[in-house]
């Protein structure tokens, strides 16, 4: 019986954010926005949910005198993503 998949990561935008951060380690808000093709509002909401779950941390800094938001995966987020990927593979190959 395959394990139930993490519902937080079964959302298109949240999974796009998490998988992008898995390969980039950290990313600026605009970079994430461009990658995910999302609106600022929607992206903020989803980042907030992931932050609330402890999957990512948000750092607000300044770059060239403009506010710059950086998102990073936390160790809990990395673990959640790895477990999600593992569970997905088990879903397709239950025998593994």
């Amino acid at each position: 019986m395959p394990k139930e998949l993490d519902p937080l990561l079964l959302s298109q935008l949240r999974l796009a954010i998490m998988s992008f951060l898995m390969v980039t380690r950290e990313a600026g808000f605009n970079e994430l926005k461009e990658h995910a093709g999302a609106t600022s509002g929607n992206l903020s909401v989803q980042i907030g949910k992931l932050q609330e779950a402890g999957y990512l941390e948000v750092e607000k800094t300044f770059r060239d005198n403009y506010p710059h938001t950086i998102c990073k995966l936390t160790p809990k987020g990395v673990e959640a993503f790895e477990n999600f990927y593992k569970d997905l593979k088990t879903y397709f190959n239950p025998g593994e």
Partner: protein
Amino acid sequence: MADQEERKLNPEESLRLIRETIDLAKNRVRENGFQFLLWGWLVVIASLTNYWLVTLGFAYGKANLVWMVMPVIGVPASLIYERFKGRRYRDNNIVSKWYGLVWLGFAVALGLSLVLAVRMNVSPIPLILILAGFSTYLSGILLRFNALIAGGIVLWIGAAACIYLPWEIHVLVQAGAIVLGYLVPGYLMNAQVRKAHA
């Protein structure tokens, strides 16, 4: 894009999204083929020039000066290219970082091997080919690009061939091995990136 917030993925879609993101990271490294090809061509040109100068009767010490000229051309060309390319995701990508670390390891090992070869009075070329082969092989695994893995093996064959060949031929083996085992996979990688963007 309010509907994206609500968009729930099924397991197939989730897996596809993750794989697409990872492929994106790999393609960003593959897109950086300029550096890869630049150094490949410099080694080939330097090898052939070195061989040609020796056949013209230049002493080995003088003919080997081409290896000094190579970084004098290569390093500024690399730096100018990086300066003007203005890559936006320069250091973020984890695949880029691993790839960079593989080739940094190569550079360190190459430096040590060259010193060792000079001190022990042995041909440095088999050592260079072993190291270049290993780095190319690892790059192929990292980028999941089989032509690079095969290229690494070609470079190792070149290194093994040097055992049976006289020193003066080693530069020609090096030029041939770099063309077949390094430049050809490099161009195949470029072609694949262009196809992906078409």
